[in-house]
């Protein structure tokens, strides 16, 4: 099966490990991710201002690209890209007046009426591939690896774009268990990582990272797993500083869910780009005999 997909900016730079491991892991499951051509920024943040239609041009333009390249569905990996594309698509579908304004503004483009379906790869894995098929591809079950699923905000809120139950999601837990790991529930799984507050108030984001990771540590987790490059940045970037500030804080590696799949499927570890990680996962993985 071929699935058109939209990578987004971060997956070409810091989150290279998310993209490459996703492409490789999905290929192992016979799903070829086909990057759409001429994509642009997703818009990053879905604007809530009633009259701020200009903000929706970027995501809608990406959906137009997908449509003209014959995609009826568009796969996404980054939680933020998923969120902005999905919500902009819902806006186009439900608000005929705004749809007309957007289409009129982009007069050089063909009209777009919400024909493309935006999907997150986790939903493709759960609903189409199925956890059993995922388990069948596992060569090195992640036995002994205790991973706390972390969802953050944008995969689950608001309800109309939620990839799972809003308050008690289980989709990442199901994935972790399908590849042989032990999923650790913790109360901060759906709390915000600090998001773009990191730009104006970096200490606030560091505080969030400390709260979230400490909570997972208390529940016995070795690592977090997530799908969002921004959460990943906020949770890993300041760990070394937090270790110095709090004597009982040890920190933990932050994995993209596709990196764990690549490990379990025993794919070339180069696709994980562990060298880009600020919280080095290799000591943990070596101690669990998951890398040599």
């Amino acid at each position: 099966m071929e699935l058109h997909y939209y990578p987004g900016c971060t997956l070409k730079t810091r989150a290279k490990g998310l993209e490459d491991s996703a492409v490789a892991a999905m290929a192992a499951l016979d799903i070829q991710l086909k990057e759409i051509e001429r994509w642009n920024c997703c818009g990053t943040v879905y604007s809530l201002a009633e009259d701020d239609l200009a903000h929706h041009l970027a995501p809608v333009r990406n959906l137009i690209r997908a449509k003209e390249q014959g995609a009826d569905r568009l796969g996404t990996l980054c939680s933020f890209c998923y969120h902005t594309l999905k919500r902009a698509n819902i806006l186009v579908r439900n608000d005929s007046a705004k749809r007309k304004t957007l289409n009129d503004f982009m007069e050089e483009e063909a009209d777009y009426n919400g024909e493309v379906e935006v999907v997150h790869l986790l939903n493709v894995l759960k609903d189409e591939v199925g956890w059993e098929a995922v388990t069948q591809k596992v060569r090195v079950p992640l036995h002994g690896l205790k991973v706390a699923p972390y969802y953050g905000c944008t995969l689950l809120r608001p309800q109309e774009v939620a990839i799972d139950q809003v308050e008690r999601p289980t989709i990442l837990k199901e994935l972790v268990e399908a590849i042989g790991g032990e999923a650790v529930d913790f109360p901060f799984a759906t709390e915000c990582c600090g998001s773009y507050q990191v730009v104006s108030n970096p200490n606030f984001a560091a505080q969030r990272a400390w709260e979230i990771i400490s909570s997972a540590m208390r529940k016995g987790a070795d690592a977090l797993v997530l799908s969002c490059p921004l959460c990943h940045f906020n949770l890993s970037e300041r760990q070394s500083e937090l270790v110095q500030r709090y004597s009982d804080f040890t920190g933990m590696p932050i994995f993209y869910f596709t990196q764990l799949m690549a490990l379990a499927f025993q794919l070339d570890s180069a696709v994980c780009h562990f060298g880009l990680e600020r919280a080095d996962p290799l000591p943990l993985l070596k101690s669990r005999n998951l890398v040599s």
Partner: protein
Amino acid sequence: MVIKKALVIGGGVAGIQAALDIADAGYEVFLVEKDSSIGGHMIQYSEVFPTLDCPQCIMTPKMVQVGQHPNIRLLAYSEVESVSGEAGNFTVQVRRKASYVNWKKCTGCGLCQTKCPVTAPAEFERWLPFGPRKAIYVPFGQAVPNKPVIDRETCRFFTQGKCKICQRLCPTGAVDYEQKETVTEINVGAIIVATGFELYAKRDIPEFAVDADIVDGIEFERILCPGGPTAGSVMRPSDRKTPREVAFISCVGSRDPEHGFPYCSRVCCMYLAKLAMLYKHAVPDGQAYIFYMDIRSTGKGYEEFVQRAVEEDEVIYLRGRASRVFRDGEKLKVWGADTLTGKRVEVSCDMVVLGMAMIPNPKGVELARKLGLATDDYGFITEAHAKLRPLETSVPGIYVAGTAQGPKDIPDSVAQASGAASKVLALLASGEAVLEKAR
């Protein structure tokens, strides 16, 4: 011609009151109760607001009266199967469930329960991990009738084919493993539906953890009750330690369209104030916190009662909703907002008590369907007219009382029950059923 007998369905405080009023007026009443004893939810409570009476003191005399009244035929452990006919002449099939004990022979001595080798969580104690019941059991000490039933699901004889200890012990030979359920047909002129309420399940609130120390109001009533499974010592279910701090959360599910119940459950403000107060009486150096949206204390003596909780028992009221409850080691954490200061609050405590939405008893909803009674979106029975005919249902000759009609407290339930009983008496006494006439 009107059959001068009545049927009351449901043996809680509303059904008991209605049955007694009709019986005292000289008419024969059948009282059908699905459980093996009457008493309903009220008999589970520790003390009741605003007087702090003990239900065991004020309710058991009424229960005993029901059991002994010459005009009341109590059909406990029974359910209404079907109803046909019309006002003045209903034919009702009542299914008498198999208790596996011949209640005519049983003297209620209790010997059968002493040697039963099986224990199971007690329904009456809301399945709390204190004081389990036996497989042959009477739900509580003051049960009316004081007769045991055998729970087939856990009884060793029914599950493993051998045991029969209770049968050997019974001095009157009342234990009968071969007993079958039977159907009794009765004819009555009028019916009162008083099937009561249940609480929405706390596990269905996904933002709150599922945890032994997060309990609903009735569970905490049992923990506080001097006659309850902890004999009134306040202890938390997980480790039996005395909770030093307890957080109470109002409007859980209620007044919350997101959870499907936009209505106010009407009693939670009062019973949470009461539970916090009783907790403080039991643990004077403990601290109680109540998260609330508004305080709705509109009954007689109710506002004074809430003020007493604040002033005398030093309950801390926090105006705001709780967004999340989760375990953090030994403690439970409650995240919420204090909307008076506009700040986020985190309360670290040992137990959390949830004021869950009151919903109609699911068995009552099923029954309303069988009887053809109109209900609202949530299953509460709809009155014939919201203002002027509040006791009549959409079916002539069938009346409603208590929480089957909507959330309400004990005095309102009792008043409504007496009102419904007087409607029934008017019908029985007049000797003719006048349909479609508003009185």
